[in-house]
């Protein structure tokens, strides 16, 4: 799983029939202190409906397909939770 910040949305009306989730968000992956990690990705956001600026966690690859449930959608990234706080583990 990865942390990311929601920066925007993508609208694509011409789409694969199996891609039924309407909400597509643009996520910038970040690490635990907020430093950007790699380029932005587009993820389905069926559960959280995260607002722009929200810190979320998301899954990639076949985990995203699983998270969305059946019937499977052709998507390789999905937002699965809204992060409310991050604490460092006690040593």
């Amino acid at each position, binding site marked *: 799983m990865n942390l990311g910040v929601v*920066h*925007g*949305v*993508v*609208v*694509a*009306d*011409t*789409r*694969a*029939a*199996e*891609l039924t989730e309407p909400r*597509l968000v*643009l996520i910038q992956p970040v690490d635990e202190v907020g430093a950007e990690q790699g*380029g*932005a*990705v*587009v*993820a389905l956001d069926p559960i959280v409906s995260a607002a*722009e600026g929200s810190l979320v966690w998301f899954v990639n*690859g*076949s985990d*995203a*397909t699983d998270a969305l449930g059946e019937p*499977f*959608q*052709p*998507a*390789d*990234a999905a937002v699965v939770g809204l992060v409310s706080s991050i604490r460092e583990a006690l040593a």
Partner: protein
Amino acid sequence: MIIGRVIGRAVSTRKDEKLLGTKLLLVEEVDPRGAGSGDMAVVADHLGAGPGDVVLVAQGSAARFTAQTKEQPVDALVVGIVDMIRFDGRSTFTSADGFGSNGKGPQP
């Protein structure tokens, strides 16, 4: 998924027979403002995307979760043709105007 710009077509006459009739596009990954990353991929397309179109590409096993690609050896698929991108509170792409105001590339 990644956002990509269609820059060409890959034609293959000798290929896995499960791919017969499937269009293969050459796609460059772009960021949400339209800047190219330099990374290219050959991507299967069943939606009719063409050169210049901005598309949404699903990678890995997700590419096989459509009726057309179910049995195909593909790991990248156009799953959407992008109409609009909003990034950091402003519209960075529309299908009518492209990226930026002149449609020729990202704004400075």
